[in-house]
């Protein structure tokens, strides 16, 4: 099992949010998605820093949309999960699954 590109917890959260949001994945929506599902408040700066890192690794790609009035005429930066990002997510999940297999009586049904 390749572990060279194992993802951190926050990176996994970001990638999963991008995956869920599909064509509507940009900073504010990603933050709201994480907040709604994990009850964690994260800063936009942290999100963008992680997204930049993931983009540099080739796991996601980005493009700039049209300016919108509710953003004061600023453009949104959208993100899309690439095949290598999906692969990295699968590997991370498999890694956790393999480590937690047989521990269900202790950890419970989660995972």
């Amino acid at each position: 099992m390749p572990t060279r590109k194992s993802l951190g917890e926050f990176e996994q959260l970001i990638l999963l949010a991008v995956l869920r949001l599909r064509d509507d994945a940009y900073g504010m929506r990603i933050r709201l998605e994480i907040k709604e599902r994990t009850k964690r408040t994260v800063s936009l700066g942290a999100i963008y820093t992680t997204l930049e890192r993931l983009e540099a690794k080739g796991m996601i790609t980005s493009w700039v949309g049209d300016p919108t009035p509710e953003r004061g005429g600023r453009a949104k930066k959208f993100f899309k999960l690439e095949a290598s990002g999906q692969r990295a997510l699968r590997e991370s999940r498999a890694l956790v699954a393999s480590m937690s297999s047989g521990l269900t009586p202790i950890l419970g049904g989660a995972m």
Partner: protein
Amino acid sequence: MTSKRSKKDVISQLKSFHFMPGEPTIEMLRTLPEKEFQNKLSELRYRDGRIWGTRPPNWQAERKAAWEVAKLAKPIMKAYWSRRAPQNLSADESPSPPRFFEFLLLLIPIRQRDHVVGDLEEEFRSITVPKYGKRLASILYAWQVLIEIARAVITGVRGVAFGWIFAKLSK
């Protein structure tokens, strides 16, 4: 513009005046004849009109020039603030976030700035204002801006510190 006062009054007031090198001292002023004393006094008035309750001789011209500069600057500032919102996209009806805190966001890295400012503004306009009202939404916006700035500063300091440690270790 100026009213003549007695020499004694003026000299007593001059005790708090900061004389520059090359200017007459109080003792010298005291010994001057009236006309020459008034001349010296007017020179000092020009230097600092506040002490004498008067203004510099060209204050009106200076004020006019300042107004002219302000008049020229106004459309430039207006264009600056509205440059990101083209006419057809302006959201005049919806409330804007506090400009001061938006200005503070200049402290965050330039590559993220536009997107972070846009996201915060969108959240302010489309979520927090309808949910909490403008007043509380402005407070939340300010709080988020401060968090973003604190994060950017901590990241920057940490980067510099790591760079310094790495440079020391690699020597």
